[in-house]
């Protein structure tokens, strides 16, 4: 069972107002805290999941129509095609690929995924993969073993 502790999910996009009908209405009071300046430094699985959903799921979710999953299936087989089910992805490896990109995948800037987001994302991926895979199968690939 995953340990979904910590704070409520903080929206990545800050919204000031959904005005019903009057043009030009704004509500400057409704400002959420900036993620990157938050004093909260704890690794946050819920936040990691939100980051995954926003930036990773479009290419790495299971099923057809996901470019990353399609590529990994061809290279590593069906069983290694979904990153949330991979037990061989180390924190360093994920960090490297996110910041550097890999083959078809573009890098993500720190304004997309800041260092704290990245810690939470790594924790989420590893949490999911450990749930999906009870028997981790050894060492992580190195960056030179580019997928």
């Amino acid at each position: 069972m995953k340990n979904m502790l910590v704070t409520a999910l903080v929206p990545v996009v800050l919204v000031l107002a959904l005005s019903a009908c009057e043009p030009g209405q704004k509500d400057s009071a409704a400002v959420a805290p900036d993620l990157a300046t938050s004093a909260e430094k704890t690794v946050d699985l819920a936040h990691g999941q939100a980051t995954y959903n926003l930036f990773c799921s479009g290419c790495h979710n299971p099923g057809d129509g996901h470019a990353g999953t399609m590529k990994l299936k061809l290279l590593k087989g069906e069983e290694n095609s979904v990153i949330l089910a991979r037990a061989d992805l180390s924190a360093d490896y994920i960090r490297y690929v996110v910041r550097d990109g890999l083959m078809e995948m573009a890098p993500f800037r720190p304004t997309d995924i800041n260092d704290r987001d990245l810690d939470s994302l790594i924790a989420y991926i590893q949490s999911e993969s450990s749930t999906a895979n009870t028997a981790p199968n050894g060492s992580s690939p190195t960056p030179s073993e580019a997928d």
Partner: protein
Amino acid sequence: MDKPLPQGISPATFASAIAELQVVVGAEYVFTDDRAHLRSYRDAYSTLDDSNFAPSAAVAPKTVEEVQGVLAVARTHQLPVWTISTGKNFAYGGPAPRKPGYVVLDLKRMNRIIEVNEKHGYAVVEPGVSYQDLYNYLQEKGSKLWIDCAAPAWGGIVGNTSDHGAGYTPYGDHLLMQCGMEVILADGTVVETGMGGVPNSKTSSLYKYGIGPWVDGLFTQSNFGVITKMGIWLMHEPPGYMPFMVTLPREEDLELITDLVLPLKLNMVIANGALTADLLWESAMSVTKRQYYTGKGPVPDSIRKKIASDLKLGMWNFYAALYGPQPIMDNNWEMVEATLRQIPGAKIYFDADRKGDPGWDYRAKLMRGIPNMTEFSLLNWVGGGGHINFSPISAADGKDSMKQFHMIRDRAHEYNFDYIGEFLIGWRDQHHIFMLMFDRMSDDEKKRAHELFGVLINDAAKLGYGEYRTHLSFMDQIADTYNYNDRALWRMHETLKDALDPDGILSPGKMGIWPQRMRGQQS
């Protein structure tokens, strides 16, 4: 790797500028460490070595006041800053600057959805808001407004619109649907365009033009200011939606479909950003080249026929949709069907016929403004991920379609690349997108792709075609093809540039517009 410095800036001046930028936005949001952060600002998919576009630093302000502070530092040191929003303009350079050493002005942290108006159908957003962000927000709130998104969900509304991007719903001409901007000029002045010029105006997102010159377009594909806010019109969810697809068995059917669709587009029977995509573009959503062909060069015709048969695709594949109350869609469908049945061998498909086909699913989502990332499957076609888009404008005319298709396909084959392309039909024009795919790990492929692109620009210009958008590498060459009356248009841009940005700090070289101090020095 030695860090590149901005042109004409000494290491000591650069260090001073960085220290001042850290005061403005906080040290946490000035990125200078190549290994930890700055490498993510390179163009991942370029035909050239990425050192050609390596920034010296990136700075990420959160507010208008911080942008003003950044520009003040830039003016003091004549520091070139390259503005990006979500930085996902891949195939055209991504987040990378035109020249090595520039400082990237990264607006991703300006990510507020400032206003959504359900009744009047618009949103006002900052540059860091992606299509996925706005879609998620509207869904969360139960809004009945649709967005019109770029094909990849992570694209930014402000960035895509200001680079003249297009989408696939009836609101697919993004700049046409833009209404009102907040722009910061190089001297720090904040300008509200259109009706926003009237204090407390309630119509800045409703009427585009205000009074006097309409200037919004000047801040798109340019370097005359920094857009920090934009109004974008959103379509009310229609009572009905019926996407459809037509497979066309022969290459020459491109001529017929183009000519048949134009009247339907002009009369708005087909109101959306309809398109005709070639066989390989659609195939790449499900399979890779290697699964069918491991030889060198473009896929042979015999294999193309096999792919088409296996995937139930045509040599060309037309996608469009009808919108509205059922009786209107029924009535319009009669006209559309009667038109399409004139194409021998054409097959018509609906959602029930192709559900589960990734190519169909993502098109059906895009034509109703549901963002997704499926189009990135194109990058798997050859593997290695390199891609750059050659994007000439064509008349929505069958003969022009064929002429451009042959021009590009023949050159692509000469350089041993596949033709992978689509024609996105606008009001009276077509955006012809040739997706030049190559393995970015292969120096030979990169070199050939780079050379091919340059040749295509010249080929197109000789036939009177110009491109609507381009990669960093080719901005100068394409600007030079808009050379009527001794480059009168670009000389006018330069006059504006010198007046609005006399220090030449804003995105020097964007679309071939260089500030006076750097003019003529580019290679």
